[in-house]
């Protein structure tokens, strides 16, 4: 039986030249080189993290949560969340690629 969870991760995290189907004569000269969906997701997470930290205080510099400034509360949570999810994703994808379940 196909492990769909594993299959999805591998597909999201990789691509090969043969899949792209480009040859020297048919190379696109505009646009971007391919970036895998997991990387796109992490980039989006980074942008979202910075927005979560700063957008609320742009509207209210003195914003507090539980009597603590928003910038005090939000930054370690966002930083830890981003860093640990990236490390986790890196090793999880490698684990799945190597055939782990």
């Amino acid at each position: 039986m196909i492990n769909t969870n594993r299959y999805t991760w591998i597909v999201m995290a990789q691509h090969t030249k043969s899949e792209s189907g480009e040859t020297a004569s048919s190379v696109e000269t505009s646009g971007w080189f391919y970036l895998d969906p997991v990387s796109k997701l992490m980039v989006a997470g980074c942008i979202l993290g910075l927005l979560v930290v700063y957008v609320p205080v742009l509207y209210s510099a003195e914003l507090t949560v539980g009597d603590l400034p928003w910038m005090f509360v939000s930054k370690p949570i966002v930083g830890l969340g981003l860093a640990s999810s990236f490390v986790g994703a890196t090793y999880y994808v490698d684990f799945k690629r190597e055939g782990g379940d």
Partner: protein
Amino acid sequence: MVRVSEMAIVLCYFVLVLAIGLYFRNRRSADEYWSAGGSIGTFVNSMAIFAAFASGGTFLGAIGIVYALGVPLWWAAAVGSVVGFLVAAIFVAKPLRRLEQHTLPDIFDYLYADSRINLIAPAIILVGYFMYMVAQLRAGGLVSDYLLGIGYLPAVTAIGLVFIAYVALGGMWAITVTDFLQGVLMWGLLAVIWLISFDYFGYSMSAPLSEAPRVAGTGGLEMQTYIGFALIWAFAVAVLPHIAMRAFSAKSPESAKRAYAWVALMYILVTLPFVHIAGAAISIDPELAEADYALLLVMESILPELVAGFAAATILAAVMSSTDALLLAMAAAVSNDLYGNLVDTDASEERIVNMGTVAVVVIGLLGIIAAWNPPTYLVELYTDGTGLMAAAFFFPLVLGIWWKPMNRYGATTGMVGGALAYAVAYFYTPMFGAIIYAVPVSLVCCVVATWLTDARSAERIEQLSDELGHDRFGW
């Protein structure tokens, strides 16, 4: 008065790093001297990158900032650094390692092959990193003056001469091994100081906030300062030459990416205890004349004498682990990039490495002299040096690797536009605010100049795709 036990520990540390430099003195090929033969594993490289990145500024300057202005300002830099390492891991780590080059300007030369860029990039590195190095040397001088009692000038001179010696002798190998050692020492020191600070507040997580409430405050600074401080590091990490050189030294592209990811996690973890450490400093003396002394105050007040000696050696290690990497990057900018890529493209590898050794000595000595009478604000000095490089290099590098049409005209305009915009905005914006304007200027310059000129050819794009590894595994 000179403190003998602390002094003895620091001298032992100096002997050890010099011995490491001597051990690697025969690794003199360009690949060994600049990139440690591309053979460093993930764990050692992670610790070495962490040590090179978490500088004297992180320890002294950061605790000083938290003491004076509250932890949210420093955590802006920490979150920015996390984003910066993740961006670097995603966009540059693997492509840089695949190219088997030695320096960041080598990468620009590969991407654009333009003599103007070969001149501009090393020049910006020399300006930005010289500011960075002087700030680090000042941190070392402050620590030694305060904890060893030998005076600022002798301390700066001694520290400078020691790291010049081991960098000149052992190049990237000596730096990597000493940085690994320094990284371990830094984690040890932080654990000890945090535990003792934690004990100082009765093992309470919230006590620093109630006893020293300004530690959680926002310091009354403008929002541009907070945003700018985060963005500088978010854009800088990918283009910091001394961090990029670690990607070249990694044993594989995947290892380079993993190392960057681990450093992101280590860096945010290392900044979390700053609340307790700075809170302890505020409780002990809320009116320090020089905020950069806050960490030293905690060490002197609550650490046993012997531990304080190790702590002094560790902060010197933090200073030296950054400064050695900066020095090697500047030496590479002079010998490998300016001389080898521009002045004499036929120069032998041996000649370039020997020139690099001379450059290490000359630049190091100039740094010592500049640090004898440095500007006051430690963090501001090196952050603005970094901001200048981020504004100039981020988009020319990332677009050069990922945007197919990007050409040398776009890169040149983006570099000059970003650097000039940063220099101009510096005078008209609050502290660290210049990056908010300079990076978009660089982006617009890159895109517009590329659109107005001939894009890369299909053959060149195919070559880049193959050599940068875009046609291989994405993640």
